[in-house]
């Protein structure tokens, strides 16, 4: 029973987290969010949640052939669409890869917006995660249009050289969270007396990843 209880909480956790990502994406002008971007946003929020003292719904990522991917989250996005909390874009086949896949876009629906408005008034946790997901999406939105995917794939946790395709990359423990460590290094590099705030650190990190992607 205890396991079932924990599982139920985890499901709620993931569901709300995804809705908050879609809200952040909308506010940052990234919506509607195509599936590859949605999974990358989820991954970055998972790997950087500790910067905002939050516990992410997942502490690992699957290095799928098309980038970071969470099979459970894909199912949750679709379930939220059926529930009317998420709007689904047109379904189409993406045949640009050797394995054709169904592509679509997600965006927060009116009902989803109303639900989050209600929860933000009632829950401090929701408010705090909302601030984090909005800041993260706003940081992603500072990357040049069309460069978001390449930039996010340079994330230091994700782009570790040992992690090959279909590997699961864990980041439960501090020493595994290279993204968070890199962000903290910006604090050391900034001039004394001018310490970037956490919102600014996210933006600096994304701009850094953009430069790394450009350099390759």
């Amino acid at each position: 029973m205890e396991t079932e209880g924990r599982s139920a909480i985890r499901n709620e956790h993931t569901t709300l987290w995804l809705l908050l990502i879609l809200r952040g994406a909308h506010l940052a002008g990234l919506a509607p969010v195509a599936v590859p971007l949605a999974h990358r946003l989820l991954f970055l929020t998972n790997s950087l949640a500790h910067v905002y003292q939050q516990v992410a719904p997942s502490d690992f990522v699957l290095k799928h052939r098309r980038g970071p991917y969470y099979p459970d989250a894909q199912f949750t996005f679709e379930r939220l669409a059926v529930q009317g909390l998420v709007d689904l874009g047109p379904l189409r086949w993406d045949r640009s890869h050797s394995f054709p896949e169904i592509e679509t876009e997600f965006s927060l629906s009116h009902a989803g917006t109303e639900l989050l408005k209600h929860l933000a008034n009632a829950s401090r946790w929701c408010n705090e995660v909302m601030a984090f997901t909005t800041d993260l999406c706003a940081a992603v939105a500072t990357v040049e249009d069309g460069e978001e995917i390449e930039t996010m794939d340079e994330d230091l946790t994700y782009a570790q050289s040992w992690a090959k395709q279909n590997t699961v990359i864990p980041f439960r423990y501090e020493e595994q969270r290279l993204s968070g460590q890199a962000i903290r290094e910006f604090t050391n590099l900034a001039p004394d007396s001018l310490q970037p705030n956490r919102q600014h650190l996210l933006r600096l990190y994304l701009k850094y990843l953009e430069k790394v992607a450009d350099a390759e």
Partner: protein
Amino acid sequence: MPSELLDPKLAVEVLQKEEYGPDEAMSEEDTFIDDVCEWLRDWIHSASESEREQMEPFGFVFSGEKLTKEVLPDGEQAPHFRSLKTNNVSGTVHACTLKLKSVVRRTLGVDASGMLLWIQQTVGPDCTAVVFVPRESKALVKRAADDVDECQVVLFATQKSQQVFDFSQLDTMLDRFHQEWTSSHMAYCRVWKTASKRILKEYAEVQIQGNLLAYLRWFVQPQGLVDEEIVTRKGRTDIRIVRLNQRKDVESAILELKVLSHKRDARLWALEGLQQVQDYRSTIGGSGEDYLCCFDARTTDQDIPDVVTACNGAGVNHKRFYMETN
């Protein structure tokens, strides 16, 4: 400390290119206002004065609780502002996301107050709006919690007046702030409860500090950082401006604000402010300019000799701004 994970060259490039930003994370609303003001600053420099003269006010609306298409349901999808510096914006109102990346617009063609009223009545009172008046290079900012009558006014430097900020301009900037915000009861900063009797509102100093903070931020950032209520071991000081000089050394200017009134001993109150500036320098240190700014609400427009002497002796700039109510 050398970086182990980051490429130091790329990281330093990013740090040099990105603005410093405020010391605390900004709310969605502040971020939106900042994004709009940043776009407006660029836009002012790309539009000629004659173009601006002929343009009608235009506005930007944001709501964290509504989808963009719901903010202006009868609006049309428009190109985002990031790449369009010369967008035809005259007389239009735009529902935008952060970074002005997703835009829905509608032509309105009314004056600034008409646009604000329309936004409040049509979009809803809980939205954030920035209405820009091109002829005056002035923006009216309505926050979600405020009424249209409580708009904050933001003035933009035009091409002629724009220059690189350094501390030598601070004296003039403070004089200008006083002239436009606090010199009279009709100025932008409404601190008087009953002007005819020279009775101030309860939190006049807080209000002046907020206005001065916003004013300085528009002019100083991103070339410097402006923050407030800096806590030191001995107490706190009101406003601080931090910038890097040409040698890349950090310099700071400290501004202690005091409102002098008949309610308390003005001399002691001003000297307490001077002590706070000195406490900052003795605990935090650093080099730069220090100011004691006294906003004078007393009935007589007269310097307090002891305060002037003490400031001169301590190397602190003394500014007294008399607030008229005639």
